């Protein structure tokens, strides 16, 4: 059975699988609630730990397998009701999962890990399960314990089992060694084995890396089905397994079980996703975009030719248009992922933080399947985590305070995602103390952010929480006050083209509402004309569009032009000068001024005409050229021509530095 395989090439698979196992353990541990022993959850954690232990042993990572073995012992005691599940126990196991993660990472990157931490956790685990480090071989010990737990009718004294073990050819690639499994089985009782060599190919076709053998095993002793299944637990899916009990006829239930299981496994793998590079998707999007444009050109050509009289032709064309639109939508949806991916980080943070602060917090998610563009999703994680941290740190009170206020001991944080009119709305609400608006206002006045005596509505005051340099918490804890404030949250969200709002009521709680565009690739734009050029302006930052006469402009030092917009003077940007565009000579109508919101300030951009509103696909200029100041990108219009998308924020900065002068490149 000695086959020379370089195991290191399978290390990647081992690490990948182990990290998956760690994720499972972590999320399941968080599902575990003190006092109740949910066997299903414990078993899931146990299986994950067991498979890490097994493969770590195969690959020779003995520290990892020893460490996992200690965890297993504790878990085993948990499922046998020998250990009461307490919050403390869960915390120890969570830190064990962390240490395991560290060990795996350091092994993967071939650097030393923090042994003191591991020893510390090991000591804690051993305190929980004093017999953890006995001399019994691990497999034997855990299975004999499993035996006790299984109990019930299966616990008859002597049983004979027939096991057919037929590994798939690629078994070795998952780092499994049949010999190890067979040895483990042998330890269970009286044992007889016969190898099946029918599948062995001719010598010429033999691939030494493949497993062609199968085995029929008879085993007798105090053995339960669970014990046998556990031995094979981590080759499940890599082999065909038949377990039958002799004497007794195979019960119909059992017979049904195995083919069903293997069948389900197969469809599971089939429906799994495939990784595709985003470049490929973007290319596809480009092509589909072109298709849509060709479609609209076709429509126009048909109209011009007067072909719309032919009904049949027209129906075909309509059909084509529908299909094209649908194709476009489908292609767009490839980039979309459920927000669930981002939510996964949160339970652990809530768990750790609530323990650190002696608070009790339950977390409720809803709308996890709501889909969001991948790029947006990646960038929303940090703001979201920050808001949740804030909710625990500043919002939720400690249990005794909550009780004295007549609230339930446990605080609740709800995170909800939903679609609302082209936007994805994320709501983070807590039933904590809410924002203290008096204190917030006082701090704002102290920092000269607001004039004293200014009349402000409650919601205006609440929204001041997003101003830099404001915190309502008296003491700076290690959670907040790290220099990442709410202003950063707001900035991150506006970078994504989204907005964040807060609603709060003193004593009842706060709700933060984040609204995000579905995708970064699409922009709601206002199409405008300056001279002969067409530009796209981002609709979401447009405040309003006004009629503008040259006489309305006031100059400062003959350089900067200002316009009196309501009560303030706002800077005027003339693209004809800034972008050196030939101005329209025959002006038969007044120009228009588009006023933009930039933070809390405004600027105006003079245009010749507003053509309309349109959703445009943002395409990068950098891909083939380089980034150009004042532009966020370009897009292809309905007639196939290219229009540039203005970067209003960039224009404002550029204008501040140079005035309406042409910057020569």
């Amino acid at each position, binding site marked *: 059975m000695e086959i020379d395989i370089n195991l290191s090439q399978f290390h990647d698979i081992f690490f990948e699988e182990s990290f998956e196992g760690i994720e499972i353990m972590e999320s399941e541990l968080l599902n575990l609630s003190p006092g109740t022993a949910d066997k299903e959850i414990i078993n899931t954690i146990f299986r994950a730990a067991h498979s890490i232990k097994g493969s770590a042993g195969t690959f020779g990572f003995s520290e990892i397998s020893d460490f996992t073995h200690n965890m297993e012992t504790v878990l085993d005691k948990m499922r046998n009701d020998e250990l009461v599940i307490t919050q403390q126990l869960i915390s120890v196991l969570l830190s064990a999962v962390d240490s395991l993660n560290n060990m795996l990472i350091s092994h993967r990157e071939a650097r030393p890990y923090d042994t003191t931490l591991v020893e510390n956790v090991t000591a804690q685990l051993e305190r929980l399960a004093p017999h953890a480090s006995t001399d019994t071989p691990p497999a034997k010990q855990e299975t004999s314990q499993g035996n006790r737990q299984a109990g019930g009718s299966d616990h008859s004294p002597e049983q004979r089992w027939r096991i057919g073990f037929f590994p798939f050819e690629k078994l070795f690639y998952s780092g499994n060694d049949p010999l190890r499994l067979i040895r483990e089985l042998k330890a269970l009782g009286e044992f007889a084995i016969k190898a099946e060599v029918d599948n062995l190919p001719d010598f010429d076709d033999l691939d030494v890396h493949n497993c062609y053998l199968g085995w029929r095993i008879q085993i007798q002793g105090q053995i339960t089905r669970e014990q046998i299944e556990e031995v094979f637990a981590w080759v499940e899916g890599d082999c065909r397994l038949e377990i039958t009990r002799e004497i007794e006829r195979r019960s119909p239930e059992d017979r049904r079980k195995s083919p069903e299981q293997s069948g389900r496994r197969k469809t599971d793998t089939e429906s799994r996703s495939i990784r595709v590079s985003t470049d490929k998707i973007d290319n596809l999007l*480009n092509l589909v975009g*072109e298709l849509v444009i060709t479609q609209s050109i076709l429509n126009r050509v048909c109209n011009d030719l007067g072909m719309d009289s032919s009904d049949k032709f027209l129906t075909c064309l309509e059909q084509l248009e529908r299909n094209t639109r649908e194709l476009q939508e489908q292609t767009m949806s490839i980039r979309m992922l459920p927000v669930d991916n981002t939510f996964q980080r949160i339970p652990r943070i809530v768990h750790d933080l609530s323990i650190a602060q002696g608070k009790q917090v339950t977390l409720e998610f809803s709308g996890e399947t709501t889909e969001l563009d991948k790029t947006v999703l990646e960038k929303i994680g940090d703001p979201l985590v920050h808001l949740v941290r804030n909710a625990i740190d500043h919002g939720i009170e400690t249990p005794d305070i909550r009780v004295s206020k007549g609230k339930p001991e446990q605080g609740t944080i709800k995170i909800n995602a939903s679609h609302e009119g082209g936007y994805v709305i994320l709501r983070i609400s807590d039933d904590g103390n809410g924002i203290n608006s008096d204190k917030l206002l006082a701090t704002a006045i102290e920092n000269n952010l607001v004039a004293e005596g200014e009349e402000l509505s409650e919601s205006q005051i609440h929204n001041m929480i997003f101003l830099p340099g404001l915190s309502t918490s008296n003491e700076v804890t290690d959670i907040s006050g790290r220099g990442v404030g709410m202003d950063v949250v707001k900035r991150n969200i506006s970078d994504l083209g989204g907005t964040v709002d807060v609603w709060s009521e003193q004593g009842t709680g706060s709700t933060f509402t984040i609204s995000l565009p579905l995708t970064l690739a699409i922009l709601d734009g206002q199409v405008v004309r300056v001279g002969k050029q067409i530009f796209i302006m981002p609709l979401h930052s447009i405040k309003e569009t006004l009629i503008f006469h040259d006489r309305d402009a006031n100059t400062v030092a003959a350089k900067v032009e200002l316009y009196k917009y309501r009560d303030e003077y706002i800077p005027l940007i003339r*693209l004809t000068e800034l*972008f050196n565009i030939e101005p329209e000579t025959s002006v038969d109508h007044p120009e228009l001024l588009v006023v933009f919101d930039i933070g809390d300030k405004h600027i105006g951009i003079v245009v010749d005409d507003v053509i309309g509103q349109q959703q445009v696909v943002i395409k990068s200029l950098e891909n083939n*050229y380089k980034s150009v100041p004042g532009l966020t990108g370009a897009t292809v219009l309905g007639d196939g*021509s*290219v229009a540039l998308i203005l970067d209003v924020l960039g224009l404002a900065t550029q204008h501040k530095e140079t005035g309406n002068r042409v910057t020569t490149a």
Partner: protein
Amino acid sequence: MEIMNIDTDHLNQGITLQDQNTSTSQLLTFILGGEEYGVDILNVQEIRSWEQATSIPNTPDYVLGVINLRGLIVPIIDLRNRFEMERAEYGPLTVIVIVKLSSKSKSSRTVGMVVDEVSDVYNISEEEIGELPDFGSIVGTEFIKGVASVNEKMVIILDIDMLIDTGVLGNDAESDDDESQALPAIS
């Protein structure tokens, strides 16, 4: 909308039938103010008819703007302008040669070059490419790989990577200075 897209694969095929020798490279040549310039055909993606580009603000004169190439935004440069040659009217023979660079580790770039007309495809072996004599600073030679003579004519072989990377995109930090020395700044 007249379409004059030539698939360079056909050109390729024609040439491979003539000569299978691997040490030779194939050049696509085009005319620029009566001079014949050549680029490695493997860099050429396609040849398009002249079309109006959307101009980009605050860019050098030789960048005419960007066009929509099947959904890709591709910059168009005027080679006459880049080489400080006399400007020409864009006519029906004016074409855009779309070249693709996948040089170095950078993501590949696609750039269009406006030329007077496409001329021919030649097989040229490495030995036939001669070095360009030193002109000092009269003519910028950093974009020129060498010269070769084909049928008694001189063909100037362009270094596309250099031309696009430093000559158009200005990726090289010092290229701005080099540019102004070799090719006097365009006013």
